[in-house]
């Protein structure tokens, strides 16, 4: 489903942004940073794969618009 895929990308993007913000925040802990960095890398790879896999679905409406209403 296209919408589900897009939503999933959107959720992953939000998660990635949260991770990036954590690196700039006062919560930053070096001990956690490597795990968080690995998580960010994984999310980025998934977002890239999802984006490349997304296809558009085109439907030509059957109604004939040259007929009088």
């Amino acid at each position, binding site marked *: 489903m296209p919408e589900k895929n897009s939503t999933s990308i959107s959720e992953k993007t939000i998660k990635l942004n949260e991770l990036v913000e954590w690196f700039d925040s006062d919560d930053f802990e070096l001990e956690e940073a490597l795990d968080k960095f690995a998580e960010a890398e994984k999310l980025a790879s998934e977002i890239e794969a999802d*984006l490349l896999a997304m296809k558009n679905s085109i439907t030509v409406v059957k*109604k004939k618009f040259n007929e009088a209403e």
Partner: protein
Amino acid sequence: MEKNVPRLTVSDFIALTNQTLEYAYPGVEVEGEVASFKVNQEKYVFFDIKDASGSVNCFMTVWQLRVPIENGMKVIITATPKLTQWGKFSLTVRAIRPSGEGSLKKSFELLREKLDKEGLFAVERKRALPGLPHHVAVISSVQAAGYADFVKILDDRWGGLQIDVASVQVQGAGAPDQMIQALKYFNSQESLPEVIVIIRGGGSADDLSAFNDELLVREIAASRIPTLVGVGHEVDVSLADMVADVRAATPSNAAQILVPDRSEVIRAVRRQVQSLLPRTEQAIDNKILGVRAQLSDVIVAIDRRHTRQQDQLDALRRVLAELDPRKVLTRGYALVRGQIAPGNIIEIEKSDIVITAEVQHARKK
């Protein structure tokens, strides 16, 4: 009466003539210049269409007049020839459109001015398009090059869209009505698209004149769904462009406006992650510097403590050295070992000599 020549009543003759004309010309396009243009009772339009050597009366209703017309304007009419009951020949006009650059431009300017006064092009009316739409409606001809360009760019840039396409004529007399019907269709759907895109590739001014149709322009303005219009090339401006919520220079540009470029998004995501590495490295460097500083403090503390203890030790050594009996001997004193009693043998130690002696006498002081 001539043999085989029909005799008709006047009404029958008129009806037969009209039947013959309708058979011969079910529809005809006539190009000429407008003269004696007038509108009666705000309902009926009368004018003549003429060229250098002829002139024909024309009749139409106001609601069929989709573009402003003036005397002297060159037009193409789509009409049916008719003999009226008063024996007057005229063309019943179904559609009229300006012909030639000058007339097209004049008609465009007249309608632009009229609609502008009504506020249809006002900036305040413009709505923003959805940031990232999921459901997009497209009004175009699926055969047109402009549509193919739009789909190609859209597919290159983004995916996951549900695109409903109303394939309509995008030029010619029927084009405006078809696009109007398509707009009404999308605006009446239960699940409304988030944006309607109207596109057409380049063409002559006449080809693009469908996008200057008054009713089409009003229908775009009335759309509940935000509109994006990309017609012709960059230099072409139509009234449909002007009334749209967002104008695209071309169909390809419409695709660019509609969705982000996934390559750009991927690059941005990669940059985001790469930016974390220097931050982490910086944090590690800071941590190392912190540990080194702490270590340095510890070393200084240990050193200080060591020095203090060394000093104490030295002081004790000095005290001990002072207490060393041998040092006392050097000052001339002697150490006597043995029982002090007359006749006993004792040992007397000086700093440089040990003497063995006999006690001759001992008395208390």
